[in-house]
């Protein structure tokens, strides 16, 4: 199935892209995508969990199981206000 990964702020800078289309196996969880990033980007390796995770614009636990077409965002700690 296909999911879309969105990256913001410092995460986008580290990965060098704000969006990725990914082909993943059924049953893939958000945290599996995070672990993929940790392998590719050593700066993320120390972080066993993403700061925050949103699927389809709602905050979820990183263990959330993804479905085809989901939009997954890893969100650095927010600093608005």
């Amino acid at each position, binding site marked *: 199935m296909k999911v879309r990964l*969105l990256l*913001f*702020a*410092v*995460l986008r*800078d*580290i990965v060098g892209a704000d969006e990725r289309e990914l082909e993943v196996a059924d049953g893939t969880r958000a945290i599996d995508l995070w672990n993929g990033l940790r392998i590719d980007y050593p*700066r*993320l390796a120390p*972080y066993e969990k993403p*700061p925050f995770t*949103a699927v389809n*614009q709602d*905050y979820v636990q990183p263990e959330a199981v993804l479905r085809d077409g989901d939009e997954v*965002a890893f*969100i*650095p*700690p*927010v*600093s*608005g*206000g």
Partner: protein
Amino acid sequence: MSYLTDAPIDQQRLTEAVMRPSDGALALFAGVVRDHHQGRAVESIFYECWRPMAEKEMAKIDAEVAAAYPDVAIAFVHRLGLLQVGEASIVIACSSPHRDEAFTACREIIERVKLTVPIWKREKGPDGEEWVGWQGK
């Protein structure tokens, strides 16, 4: 109406948006770019945002605070892009017949915005630019 803007925030207009003849109190909060942060000098801040989710989170905060304080009229706007020292990044206006709910609602909104709305700031100082908070390093 959008909770986000790329232009300077008009505090007076936000005030007028909430005031009703039955209101005896206005509590207003403005978050402003200041010239320092954790000991570092700050010249400007760039506010980045994930707009669709930010709008959604802010609408949720609006609805939930309004439900908790039904007498309060609420308006708030966050500014995005590059802001100089002294410019307001967020303004929150809460009016109510009595002051207690207006103060409490106003405070609750800023605390919640800072917790969940996907907005990030990158500070620029004499030593360069830096994302505030978690930096993945």
